């Protein structure tokens, strides 16, 4: 058991990779065998994720290190060296938190896919791509090496675009996939340039080592700018959010949910860069306020444009973009005040980080429900829907839970995290809190519109059937998370969010020390 715990971080990445390589081979044996294998590997991955997170949280979020190919495996520095020479995984509270989010979304999306993709061709490509995407997200969240992060970023991008364009008989999906891939490529290359600049100056690729070396030199700042913009693009921060609408809107429904997790992993990378990599060097208040401005823009553009949409998935995609704004707002307030460290800065970090898991659950639930609606009604146009609630009672109820939670209506989980963001951003500047609350109200209006147009009213469509059981179960799983996190927020804030926020806000020294010692 102990060996399993020790190797859990790498197994968490290797298991989905193994699944991705094995599934095409066993797919020859028929779809039942394939689905069984996929299910087993998903559960295995999820339990490994739980194990990793449990190990880290048992140590209250202190970073643990896994060095690839070293003997012994926690030997970060060979004797006499001050530079880590091997790739290493470094898992701290924040990583553990992100891993749990990804595992949750992964289980829900895979379960949902079993029914959603039952009669589609290409399952032997769909599930491997999904596993690759998951492995890449886990890798991004665990790695302590900048180039390794870039590699996982690229795997995530390529697998995601393969999945977005997975239905090539729809021209729009190809358009979305091309646009997304082009933007992913550009931002990936920005990361690579930044990495080159950092390597050229400091001769290392390890995040902890670089963090101990970067200063406020001009080259380091150029690298920082490139990293911020590239990771912001991948996370879907306005005004670079436009790919996100196309991608979330056109991808198959379960993939949209996983893409949200992938965007959050990029956001995690952004936070890692801001707080850990450049945590000591950068005291640029202007950058913090710029991030806050971007987050407010993201919020506002997301909700207002959502009001106009006719396509149900594109509408939810705008909602998803606006939620990225909330996370960035919370953490941006934390970043701006990280020099002076007032109490509300930490609360803001907690709010922003807590909102990540809430967003993954609600948006995932909404995307899955929208997929069920699309499948049942054969259309995504809200103007052609109506009265679906008569035939799809469960879907309607679950959609309502997701929508209310996303709009921040108590007692669901969206409210608890938004409350933390409102109060702390009010302390930073009342205008921010006002905009955040206004956006929440608009979001409620948006989802009233969807619910009214799709589920209420007289039956407009014939032959509508309730979503299949597998789809309902996966939605129910996310809904349970939404409700439980809403009813017992204190427990989760204490156990999960606070270690994560501490790891970012105060944990830089511990992060560096875990690698460099001393």
């Amino acid at each position, binding site marked *: 058991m102990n060996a399993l715990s020790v190797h859990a971080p790498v197994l968490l990445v290797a298991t989905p990779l193994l699944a991705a390589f094995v599934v095409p081979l066993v797919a020859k044996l028929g779809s039942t065998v394939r689905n069984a294998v996929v299910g087993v590997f998903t559960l295995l991955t999820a339990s490994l994720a739980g194990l990793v997170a449990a190990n880290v949280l048992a140590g209250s979020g202190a970073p643990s290190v896994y060095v690839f190919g070293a003997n012994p495996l926690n030997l970060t520095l060979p004797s006499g060296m001050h530079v880590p020479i091997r790739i290493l995984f470094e898992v701290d509270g924040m990583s553990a938190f992100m891993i749990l989010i990804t595992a949750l979304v992964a289980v829900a999306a895979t379960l949902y896919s079993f029914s959603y993709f039952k009669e589609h061709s290409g399952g032997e490509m769909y599930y491997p791509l999904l596993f690759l995407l998951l492995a890449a997200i886990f890798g991004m969240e665990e790695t302590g090496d900048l*180039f390794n992060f870039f*590699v996982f970023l*690229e795997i995530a*991008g*390529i697998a995601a*675009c*393969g999945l977005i*364009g997975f239905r*090539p008989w729809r*021209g*729009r999906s*190809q*358009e*979305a*996939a*091309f*646009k997304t*891939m*082009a933007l*992913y*490529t*550009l931002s*990936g*290359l920005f990361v*690579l*340039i930044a990495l*080159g600049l950092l*390597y*050229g100056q400091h001769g290392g*690729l390890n995040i902890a080592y670089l963090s101990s070396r970067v200063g406020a030199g001009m080259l380091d700042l150029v690298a920082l700018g490139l990293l911020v913009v590239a990771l912001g693009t991948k996370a879907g921060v306005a005004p670079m959010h436009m790919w996100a*609408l*196309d991608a979330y*809107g*056109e991808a198959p429904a379960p993939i949209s949910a996983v893409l949200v997790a992938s965007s959050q992993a990029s956001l995690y990378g952004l936070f890692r860069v801001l707080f850990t990599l450049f945590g000591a060097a950068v005291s640029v208040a202007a950058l913090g306020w710029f991030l806050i401005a971007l987050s407010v823009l993201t919020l506002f553009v997301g909700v207002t*444009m959502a009001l*106009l*949409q006719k396509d149900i998935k*594109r509408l939810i995609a705008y909602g998803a973009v606006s939620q990225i704004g909330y996370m960035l707002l919370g953490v941006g307030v934390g970043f701006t005040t990280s020099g002076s460290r007032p109490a509300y800065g930490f609360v803001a970090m907690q709010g922003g980080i807590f909102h990540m898991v809430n967003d993954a659950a609600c948006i995932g639930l909404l995307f899955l429900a929208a997929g069920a609606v699309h499948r049942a009604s054969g259309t995504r146009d809200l103007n052609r829907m109506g009265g679906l609630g008569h035939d799809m009672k469960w879907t309607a109820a679950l959609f309502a839970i997701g929508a209310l939670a996303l709009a921040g209506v108590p007692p669901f989980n969206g409210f608890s995290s938004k409350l933390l963001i409102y109060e702390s951003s009010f302390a930073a500047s009342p205008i921010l809190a006002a905009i955040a609350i206004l956006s929440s109200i608009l979001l409620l209006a948006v989802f009233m519109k969807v619910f009214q147009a799709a589920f209420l009213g007289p039956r407009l469509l014939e032959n509508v059937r309730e979503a299949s059981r597998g789809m309902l179960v996966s939605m129910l799983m996310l809904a349970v998370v939404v409700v439980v996190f809403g009813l017992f927020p204190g427990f989760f804030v204490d156990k999960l969010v606070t270690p994560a926020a501490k790891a970012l806000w105060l944990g830089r020294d511990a992060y560096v020390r875990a690698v460099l010692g001393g």
Partner: protein
Amino acid sequence: MGNFPFVVAMLLVILGLYTLLFKRNLIKLVIGASLIETGVNLFLVALGYRTAGIAPIYTYAPPALADRMVLPTPQALTLTSIVIGLATTALLLSFAVVIHRHYGTLDVREVKELKG
């Protein structure tokens, strides 16, 4: 010679960026991405060069120069980055082919069903 190779690498990146921003053909955009990719690879390898160094391979290396080898890490990184570049290019081009099949055009300004 100064930093001429670095400058050339960055110029390649800039040319690629120019293509992405101001060219109108989807395949031209892919060419732009490839140019950036090439530029970054050149940049990485140039970072590791040592004047009058030799390749980091000990087989039949001239013993006199054996302590002056160029840095190997950027070369390893570049190998990975080259394959990643090929993967993205292939994927982008196949999307472009299917887009052409559906839309009948490769003009960026006409491939915009997803808007608003």
